[in-house]
């Protein structure tokens, strides 16, 4: 608890314009194949053949918790 008379903590200005991140769409499951050094789909085909997956993973809008979606 804050003591009385303490200044209320101010929010950085930009936070007024933040909004919840949109949910990442459900993606086909894929896993890394160390021999090919590529990701593969459940049926063994390369993940890059799945355009919906590629499109979602390569977007520039950041999705919560993603290691690959940011744009810097």
């Amino acid at each position, binding site marked *: 608890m804050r003591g009385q008379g303490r200044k209320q903590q101010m929010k950085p*200005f930009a936070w007024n*314009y933040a909004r919840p991140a949109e949910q990442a769409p459900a993606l086909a499951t894929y896993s890394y194949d*160390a021999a090919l*050094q590529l990701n593969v789909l459940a049926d063994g085909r390369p993940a890059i053949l799945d355009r919906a997956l590629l499109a979602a993973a390569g977007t520039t809008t950041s999705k*919560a918790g993603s290691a*690959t979606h940011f744009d810097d």
Partner: protein
Amino acid sequence: MTVLVLTSAQDVTADLVVAELHELGVPLVRFDPADLPGEVALSTEYVRGEFRGYLSTGGRVASVDALRSVWVRRPGGAAAHAEEPSAWLAEETDHALYGMLDSTDARWMNHPSAAARARRKTWQMRVAHRSGFPVPATLVTTYPAMARRFAEQYRHVVVKSVSGKSPGDPPMALPTTLVPPDADFSGVAAGPTLFQRYIAKRADIRLTSVGDTHFAARKTAEAGQVDGRFGDTGHSWQPVDVPPQVARAVERYKRHASLAYGAFDFAEEEQTGTWWFLECNQGGQFGFVELDTGQPLARTVAEWLAAEPG
């Protein structure tokens, strides 16, 4: 000669380039520095003036003097996946890995020091201006009064993050947003805030520069739209020619910044068609542009990485 790809395992955009390298018949080693030590091992030795270094992962061994290039795509932090991660172990591992790689003649896309500097938007504004790009009036400040004056002067101003990162845990989205001139600016004192003159635009431009090759793509904006990444307008990215004076400015910018790769964002102004510089993402995404436009971005990255050191 081997290409080294540093990125996270789940990075399917990197897969596009790896597949092109396979097609070119170029040997490569891919790993995430987060998996060092553990799935990745290294050794460097300096004995009687002789320098040797090896990296191994998944049964592959690469001698560092046989590296032709290093692609720093989306690597995790060194030792981040260690059994007992710590700031100390991360620093030790980072020094061992990047110190070793920096001792080679390999070409970098992009070198970590150049990348660290090039991420900062304030620095980008300065270099962009010097390179010959038109740059919208920009203010980064902790003074509420300065922010208010800027908003009154330009009337239409946007706010965006200084670092390009989103706040919060889990992260929130922070779209570039118009600020009403009568906004309460007191929060500016609680964190440096970036304001920029709003460019009334008819399109967003994304220019991906790989070595000496530049690909531009254009996405039509709706009237009054601000951040092109939010709100689906039904428009997709279309290839567009790079004006010669833009190409020259891109080349000056990248030379000054020591970057081999850069993804530039511009706003194409409604009235004049001018491309206003917004930012240069030194590690910017390119998969979404390639999917829409068919521009051979992954192929061009692979060819740049495959070239022998000159």
